């Protein structure tokens, strides 16, 4: 009797997990096809692919593709640009997002808050192509800023000056993402129980003390997740930012070419499949290694905050 009940229980349990699995199945299939199958394709990085033989029959060449990339003069530039920009984006972007989230949290009027949020979210709505048009309307030959400079007697052609682009790209990237990330952090702050703040207020804590002792520590798990996820993408770039905004101006490549645009252009121009996939594999592996390492560091400091 007891056994029968147990069996029936087991059966319904089994049926339940089966039904839940069915719900997850479509997404599982999509992820399998578009994420896992390509992972199996990393072997292309070790082949000298030619079209007559196809990718499976092309000869193996060991690490030749990697050698070819790392001995090229571009390798250092694109890796430096990718990492350099990302480090600045993560550091400045995260810091400003948290500051803006804290500032938004000080706004009491719902209407005003909504107005700010709406404005801050604007840039997120534009594709990089539209942002490129906007940038052009400021710094292009007929641009507003170019016009101002001209009024001051300075003739400055933004699209040929390399030194200005790191500043422009950092500014544009922060401008576009700040509204989005600050709202994520703001939502995180709203999730903190009001009781902490009330208790602190009774104990006579001022605003700054509450931020330092309550908001920031309780926001730390979210900050860590966001940062670790960005670190995992540190060898990748926002293709649109680097491809569209500085336009296809070769003169600017020393400061605008990143790994992603390099791989794309290499593929389009020379059709070098082996080397492109070698660079892609390098990106994936390095990003993965970096995130494993940072997760390990996080774990040592605070077990709670680890990503996985």
């Amino acid at each position, binding site marked *: 009797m007891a056994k029968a009940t147990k069996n029936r229980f087991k059966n319904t349990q089994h049926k*339940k*997990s089966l*039904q*839940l*699995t*069915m*719900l*997850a199945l*479509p*997404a*599982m299939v*999509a992820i399998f*096809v*578009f994420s896992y*199958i*390509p*992972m199996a*394709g*990393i072997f*292309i990085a070790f082949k000298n692919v030619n079209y007559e033989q196809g*990718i499976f029959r092309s000869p193996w060449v060991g690490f030749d593709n990697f050698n070819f990339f790392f001995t090229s003069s571009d390798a250092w530039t694109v890796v430096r640009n990718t990492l350099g920009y990302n480090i600045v984006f993560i550091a400045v972007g995260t810091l400003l997002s948290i500051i803006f989230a804290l500032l*938004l949290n000080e*706004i009491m009027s719902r209407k005003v808050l*909504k*107005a700010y*949020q*709406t*404005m801050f*979210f*604007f*840039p997120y709505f534009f*594709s*990089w*192509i*539209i942002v490129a*048009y*906007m*940038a052009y*309307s*400021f710094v*292009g030959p*007929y641009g*507003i800023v170019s016009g101002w400079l*001209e009024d001051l007697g300075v003739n400055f052609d933004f699209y040929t000056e390399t030194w200005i682009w790191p500043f422009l790209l950092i500014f544009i990237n922060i*401008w576009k993402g700040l509204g989005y990330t600050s709202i*994520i952090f*703001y*939502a995180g702050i709203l999730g903190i129980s009001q009781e902490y703040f009330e208790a602190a207020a009774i104990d006579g804590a001022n*605003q700054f003390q509450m931020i330092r002792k309550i908001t920031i520590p309780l926001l730390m798990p*979210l900050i860590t*997740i966001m940062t670790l996820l960005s670190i995992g993408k540190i060898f990748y770039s926002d*293709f649109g930012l680097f491809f*569209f905004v500085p336009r296809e101006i070769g003169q600017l490549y020393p400061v605008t070419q990143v790994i992603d645009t390099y791989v794309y252009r290499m593929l389009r121009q020379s059709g070098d499949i082996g080397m*492109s*996939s070698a660079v*892609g594999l390098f*990106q994936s592996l390095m*990003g993965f290694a970096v995130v494993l390492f940072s997760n390990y560091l996080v774990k040592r400091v605070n077990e709670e905050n680890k*990503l*996985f």
Partner: protein
Amino acid sequence: MALRAKLPKILIHLVLILFGILCIIPLISIISVSLSDETTILKNGYSLLPQGLNLHAYAYVLYKPVQLLNALKVSLLVSVFGTVVSLLVSAGISYVLSREDYKYKNKLSFYVFFTMLFNGGLVPTYMLISKYLHLKNTLWVLILPYLAIPWFILILRTFMQKIPHSIIESCMIDGASELRIFFRIILPLAKPGLATVGLFTLLQYWNDWWLSLLYIEKESLVPLQFMLYRMINNIEFLTRSTNMMPPGMNNVVVPAETARMAMAILAAGPMLAVFPFFQKYFVSGLTVGAIKG
């Protein structure tokens, strides 16, 4: 004294207003240029306020807009269909991941979120889609790759985790199947999360140029953003098949600079119009929680 107490508040508002203005100025500038007179622009350069208010650029862009309408049709179709399907697919797996009592929760969690940290790269993906799945130059290639985006799944799952388990349990006691619980109970309760992720997904599809850059060569399948990209250097793309000026504009300069900005406005406009409908749910729907199972 009163001023000193208010000073921090004023400063906070000042910073927020300044950044707010910074966020909308570029939009104002391209709207102004699109409404300006081409010859004045060529003479004086762009400005934040329109110069010589007229609609020539829009008349030019919308005169015989065969390609424009086609691109709009592609973008609309892909965005609407893609968003609906993607939202259903993502909500399904997000719900399963939010269920503490699901047997394979940790394994599934790893399966989904591992792809945020490691991927096969551009070349294998490109080969798979073009050579093996033969999706190049189809509408499917603009939809399928974005059906299940781990980041959106993470947001949705975090939201669904906040739905009390007791609700689900009481439905089970009433004998409802998992599917029924999902469609009848979970989806309505997850509305803020669904609205937020729905908006992100809609934007992802509407603003996408990446998939068309890689996989679309056929003229009839070019979406709006990709068309805009090709016009960065060449406005003629727009009127190639109907190389004519609207009647009454024959003696006017081709409004190349202004028409480009008019196109940008037409491409960005619909999404800006859609935002207010989602805003109600926004902050509550946008919580991100831990990845670990």
